[in-house]
């Protein structure tokens, strides 16, 4: 499609895109140039913003006579407008306005009033308002014609804009309506029939044109060249307006030829369209002209109501386009598509068209007018000053000089300053007042001149009124505009607000969705998956896919879940297997159980049968079994004791059994007491009947108790507190000489301590010496088995508080009854009590018992043996015989003269009162747990008293001797160093006196030693020369020296094989 630049003004007054749409050969012309179709018009066709120009090329010179016209249409679109031009237009508007004002003034002067004497001011104002109302009620399309030039002066106000000389024109834009009416026809012909159509129309239509009967004349026939192709355009003129049209139509209906023509024609057509047009008053009437020419039909679609403005502008602009006679005619649609303007131009050819148009652009004023038409088209609502009467006559093209006749007040509003309008209003009102006053003044004066004067004033005031009216309109327009703007803005705001609300809602919704997404918890998070390393280590690579999942936690989790599923499946499988296994095993167990249950009676019978055998073989399995049964009912400490003692006994038996059996059993353990009672103790609340009866009994008891005195009550409580467990453990410890230590262990339930009672039986009946009374008494035989363990105080510190409650001072008073609560007994029972510092809680502990069992048993045995040994020794000592055993003879010389004459028990208190025992008492070696004896050794007149402290741990702890010699005065360690030395010899050097291993002969040896010492002492005493007679004690002992050292100690040490005495 060729594009032709319609105009190329670089600095952009209009960015134009003119397109040559099509050129058709003129219809019926001989030199008709056939044109190919050149496409369709732009979408702007039919749009109110678009305009369409016809491009014409006249093939023949005179249009009508030759009836051959060449048509063409060219359309372009105007898109935007430069701001610069707007400002320019504003200025122009102002100028126009001022010019108008002058004109009105001039008009007012030119026209006289009919001489009304009424006061003008109020009237004028009221009319002004009325007119304004009318103005606003009127449609935009409404046109005002000042048909009547006479009448009131008000009317004349409306027409003053129009040139007064053109008053005769009754139409605004067109030439008189009655004069000419044009009809334009567009026929779209089937392309193949175009020639036929041309020839057909050429044959028929000129006849109508030439026929005088028909008041119509054919202005031209055209085929489109550029534009809509295969189209024929016919322009008819009806001279005489609508009556002529109607007349013509009626006549044609009866014209047979024409009807046939139509019939024929209709077969060639695709569509038809026509419009009734009026002629613009300022355009030339189309005249036949010499050709050949091209014709350009420019068709504008205007915004409604802009027609008059259009006309005003073009009336001014057309003068610039008259030079080459190119303007053929200007039409606007009356019936048919409205607001359409057709301008028909004729050029020699396209080149000349170009040149002509460029020439027009160079003319000053053309561009402005083009601009105005443009700007009017831009604006939609238009108020058109339509009060200008169109110029009369078809030929008066000079009325294009009426500048400012048509302009848009709406546009003007934007251009004017409201402040200045106000000033103007004030000024006009003043002027009006002044003029009215003058008129009144003139009228009151009267006179001829006055009429002229008055007329003059009237015209002036009319002009002012016009101004007022104008201002009024402007004000209203402004108001309306303001409202519109406000409304518009409000709607915009509402729309935005709504949009905002929507957006906010959307945001909220999205946020909710987001939080929902974020809070989404997958089920897999609750699953405790295997750790990552384990997963990668154990999972097969097709699940773990380390290379994929290492970097991607999501994939990793998926893989781990897969693995989990896999494992769980496997485990489920295993579980099922295990279940079936279990079933199987259960069945097996059932079978075995049955077998076992059948075994029980048989075993019983065998057991029954074996009893006599057991008895016969001394293998008391059954008995032991029973004992163990009973042991179950023992309180924990006794049980511990029982178990440990049994174990120890068995262990010893085993040890012995490896050697030739000397004794059958060293340690035997038994349980005594009523098992039933013990059972009852353990489960009293089970038997409800018993319980009731018990409680009854208790109640009775308590009621009884309440009555008696407090003492009896306390007694009962004491008894309750000191109650023993019904079961006790009996321990028989056999010594080598067949003496047996019977130990009975009790458990005091409420005090949580254990006590023991001891009894010693010997194989042979002993002659009980007087002094040995306490030796084997149950009270003392076990005393101080461990140092300081008297067994007279309770080892449980908690007991003291219990005693306080019931008024027991110490346990000592009850020990005889209950047995002794020795510490070692507690330890054997696994009871550990804190001594000074609080340590452990009291729990029966096997390990404690076990650790003490062996040592304690050994100690017990030693104790019994030593006691028995002492017992024997005492028996001799009481008879004055020092029973030195044969294996100890080496310790002493063969001849010992001093004799033991006395061996008696003395009380602790008596011992304390002895004058020569002070040192021992002070040294703290004379505790009340010891046994005290007094021995007397005599030789001649010398009597040696020896006070003996016998520690319960005898033989490991030696007896302590304190001496007092009665010979030539009383001699003790205080006044005689040798007595002291003798004590030391007996006490300190006791180790060499122990004799063979058990050492039980120590006491005997010490006494024998004492006798020897006394011999030495007496024999080595220096003879006092002053005393008459021989020495009482001749020296029989062999001594190396008599005295030695500063203390002059005598030779008390006996050297065994040589038999002499020496110093230590």
């Amino acid at each position, binding site marked *: 499609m060729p594009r032709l630049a319609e105009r190329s003004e670089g600095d952009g007054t209009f960015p134009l895109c003119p397109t040559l749409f099509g050129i058709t050969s003129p219809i019926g012309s001989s030199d008709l140039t056939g044109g190919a179709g050149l496409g369709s018009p732009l979408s702007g066709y039919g749009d109110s913003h678009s305009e369409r120009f016809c491009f014409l090329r006249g093939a023949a010179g005179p249009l009508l006579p030759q009836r051959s016209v060449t048509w063409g249409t060219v359309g372009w679109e105007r898109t935007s407008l430069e701001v610069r031009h707007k400002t320019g237009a504003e200025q122009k508007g102002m100028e126009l306005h001022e010019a108008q004002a002058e004109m009105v003034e001039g008009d007012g002067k030119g026209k006289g009033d009919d001489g009304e004497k009424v006061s003008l001011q109020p009237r004028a104002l009221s009319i002004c308002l009325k007119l304004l109302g009318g103005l606003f009620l009127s449609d935009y399309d409404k046109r005002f014609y000042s048909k009547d030039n006479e009448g009131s002066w008000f009317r004349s106000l409306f027409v003053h804009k129009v040139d007064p000389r053109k008053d005769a024109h009754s139409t605004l834009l067109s030439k008189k309506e009655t004069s000419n009416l044009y009809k334009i026809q567009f026929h779209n012909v089937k392309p193949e029939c175009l020639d036929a159509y041309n020839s057909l129309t050429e044959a028929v239509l000129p006849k109508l044109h030439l026929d005088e009967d028909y008041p119509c004349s054919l202005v031209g026939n055209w085929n489109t060249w550029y534009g809509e192709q295969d189209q024929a355009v016919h322009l008819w003129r009806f001279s005489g307006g609508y009556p002529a049209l109607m007349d013509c139509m009626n006549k044609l209906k009866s014209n047979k030829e024409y009807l046939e023509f139509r019939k024929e024609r209709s077969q060639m057509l695709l569509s038809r369209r026509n419009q009734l047009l009026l002629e613009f008053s300022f355009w030339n009437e189309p005249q036949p002209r010499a050709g050949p020419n091209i014709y350009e039909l420019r068709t504008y679609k205007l915004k409604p109501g802009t027609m008059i403005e259009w006309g005003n502008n073009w009336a001014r602009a057309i003068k610039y386009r008259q030079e080459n006679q190119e303007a053929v005619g200007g039409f606007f649609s009356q019936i048919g598509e409205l607001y359409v303007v057709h301008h028909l131009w004729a050029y020699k050819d396209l080149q000349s068209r170009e040149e002509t148009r460029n020439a027009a652009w160079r003319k000053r004023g053309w561009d402005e007018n083009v601009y105005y038409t443009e700007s009017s088209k831009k604006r939609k609502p238009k108020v058109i000053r339509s009060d200008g009467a169109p110029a009369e006559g078809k030929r008066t093209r000079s009325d294009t000089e009426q500048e400012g006749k048509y302009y848009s007040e709406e546009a003007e509003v934007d251009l004017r300053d409201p402040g200045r309008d106000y000033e103007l209003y004030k000024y006009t009102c003043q002027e009006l007042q002044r003029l009215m006053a003058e008129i009144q003044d003139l009228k009151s004066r009267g006179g001829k001149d006055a009429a002229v004067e008055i007329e003059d004033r009237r015209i002036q005031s009319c002009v002012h009124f016009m101004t007022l009216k104008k201002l009024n309109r402007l004000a209203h327009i402004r108001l309306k505009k303001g409202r519109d703007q406000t409304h518009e803005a409000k709607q915009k705001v509402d729309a935005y607000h709504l949009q905002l609300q929507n957006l906010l809602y959307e945001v909220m919704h999205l946020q909710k969705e987001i939080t929902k997404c974020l809070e989404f918890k997958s089920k897999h998070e609750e699953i405790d998956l295997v750790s990552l390393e384990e997963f990668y280590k154990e999972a097969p690579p097709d699940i773990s896919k380390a290379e994929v999942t290492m970097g991607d936690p999501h994939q990793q989790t998926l893989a781990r879940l897969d693995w989990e599923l896999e494992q769980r499946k496997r485990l489920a499988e295993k579980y099922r297997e295990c279940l079936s296994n279990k079933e199987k095993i259960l069945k097996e167990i059932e079978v075995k159980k049955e077998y076992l249950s059948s075994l029980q009676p048989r075993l019983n019978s065998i057991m029954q049968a074996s009893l006599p055998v057991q008895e016969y073989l001394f293998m008391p399995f059954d008995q032991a079994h029973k004992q163990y049964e009973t042991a179950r009912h023992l309180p924990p400490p006794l049980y511990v004791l029982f178990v440990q003692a049994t174990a120890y006994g068995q262990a010893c038996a085993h040890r012995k059994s490896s050697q030739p059996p000397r004794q059958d059993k060293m340690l035997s353990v038994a349980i005594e007491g009523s098992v039933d009672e013990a059972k009852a103790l353990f489960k009293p609340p089970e038997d409800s009947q018993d319980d009731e009866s018990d409680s009854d009994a208790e109640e009775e008891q308590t009621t009884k108790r309440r009555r008696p005195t407090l003492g009896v009550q306390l007694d009962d409580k004491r008894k309750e507190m000191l109650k023993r467990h019904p079961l006790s453990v009996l321990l028989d410890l056999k010594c080598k000489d067949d003496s047996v230590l019977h130990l009975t262990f009790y458990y005091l339930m409420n005090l949580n301590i254990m006590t023991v009672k001891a009894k010693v039986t010997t194989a042979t009946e002993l002659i009980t010496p007087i002094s040995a009374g306490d030796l084997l008494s149950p009270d003392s035989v076990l005393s101080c088995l461990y140092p300081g363990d008297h067994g007279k105080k309770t080892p449980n510190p908690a007991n003291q508080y219990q005693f306080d409650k019931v008024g027991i001072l110490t346990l000592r008073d009850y020990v005889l009854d209950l047995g002794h609560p020795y510490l070692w007994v507690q330890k054997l029972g696994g009871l550990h009590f804190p001594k000074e510092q609080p340590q452990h809680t009291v729990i029966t502990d096997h390990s404690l018992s076990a650790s003490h069992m062996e040592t304690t048993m050994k100690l017990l045995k030693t104790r019994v043996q030593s006691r028995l040994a002492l017992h024997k020794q005492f028996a001799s000592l009481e008879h004055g015989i020092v029973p030195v055993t044969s294996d100890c003879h080496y310790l002493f010389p063969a001849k010992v003269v001093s004799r033991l004459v006395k061996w008696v028990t003395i009380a602790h208190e008596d011992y304390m009162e002895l004058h020569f025992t002070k040192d021992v008492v002070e040294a*703290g070696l004379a505790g009340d747990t010891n046994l005290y004896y007094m021995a007397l050794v005599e030789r001649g007149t010398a009597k040696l008293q020896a006070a003996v402290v016998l*520690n319960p741990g005898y033989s490991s702890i030696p007896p302590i001797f304190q001496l007092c010699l009665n010979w030539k005065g009383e001699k003790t360690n205080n006044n005689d*160093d040798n007595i002291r030395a003798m004590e030391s010899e007996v006490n*300190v050097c006791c180790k060499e006196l122990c004799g063979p291993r058990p050492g039980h002969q120590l006491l005997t040896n010490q006494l024998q030693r004492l006798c020897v010492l006394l011999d030495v002492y007496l024999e080595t005493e220096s003879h006092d020369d002053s005393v008459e007679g021989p020495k009482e004690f001749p020296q029989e002992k062999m001594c190396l*020296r008599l005295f030695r050292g500063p203390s002059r100690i005598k030779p008390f040490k006996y050297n065994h094989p040589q038999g002499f005495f020496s110093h230590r």
Partner: protein
Amino acid sequence: MERAAQQAVPLGQMEVFQALQRLHMTIFSQSVSPCGKFLAAGNNYGQIAIFSLSAALSSEAKEESKKPMVTFHAHDGPVYSMVSTDRHLLSAGDGEVKAWLWAEILKKGCKELWRRQPPYRTSLEVPEINALLLVPKENLLILAGGDCQLHAMDLETGTFMWALRGHTDYIHCLALRERSPEVLSGGEDGAVRLWDLRTAKEVQTVEVYKHEVRAHPTFCPPSFLPGHPRCLHLPLCSPPSQECSRPHNGRWIGCLATDSDWMVCGGGPALTLWHLRSSTPTTVFPMRAPQKHVTFYQDLILSAGQGRCVNQWQLSGELKAQVPGSSPGLLSLSLNQQPAAPECKVLTAAGNSCRVDVFTNLGYRAFSLSF
């Protein structure tokens, strides 16, 4: 089985044994360190204990400070005698003399510096050493004891130079006459012999048990009255005639002390003050119990022996005071007169107990140090 029993009651048995040992302990000898702050005491078990006098005498003394700082086993038999040189503690008892360094003695595990045994005649029994005497001028140590001889040992070389024989029984005690190099020795035979160190010969013999003090002193030799402050109160009039001898106690001389021409000795015979030049007893002190230690102190004579008391005598024979100690019998007195430690100037007494009594002045017993 017995052994097991002993293991089971270690505490009780040990305690009893210790108590018995203490009960029968006798402290034979004492010696003050050259610095004057420490006291060494030797007992019948052969142990030597070192007490800190300064600690025990200080105002912040506790019970512990009255216990020995160190106790070590020095001899197999009793420690009968100890002396201190400038650096050494010399102890003797069972026939040997041992030397210990004072500087190291306070450390644990102190070893003897040397030991010497005098040349004894072979005997079944090793004779004991009852007395040690230092002769500072000659740098000699004189030992005397069971073999009835005085042995002189050169401290520098450690060799025994000579032996003085004369006593017929074992020697109890020694004393040095400071002016003339003469040594006195007292023995079981009842004689006090005076030996000249230069000639190594016996000079004089006093057999105390043979003498008696006449009721009326004939004269007071003018030679020993002037020039000696102690002679100012010399009694010119004595109580009726007194015999030195006490046959029931024996003849033995247990203690000796000299001061110029004066000698005091005691033992089996009564405690007697002698004038050496004239070999006459001047005063018999009225004390029944045999005395085991005697010494001059200023114008007093201090003596101790059987009985609890430390006796203070005037030269005239008057008993000035009897200050009781804690032991039933005393065997040694020690006066700490070392100028190095004036604050430790005390009298200590020890004997038939494990305690050493400390007298800060002569009036009373302040406290006891104890093994």
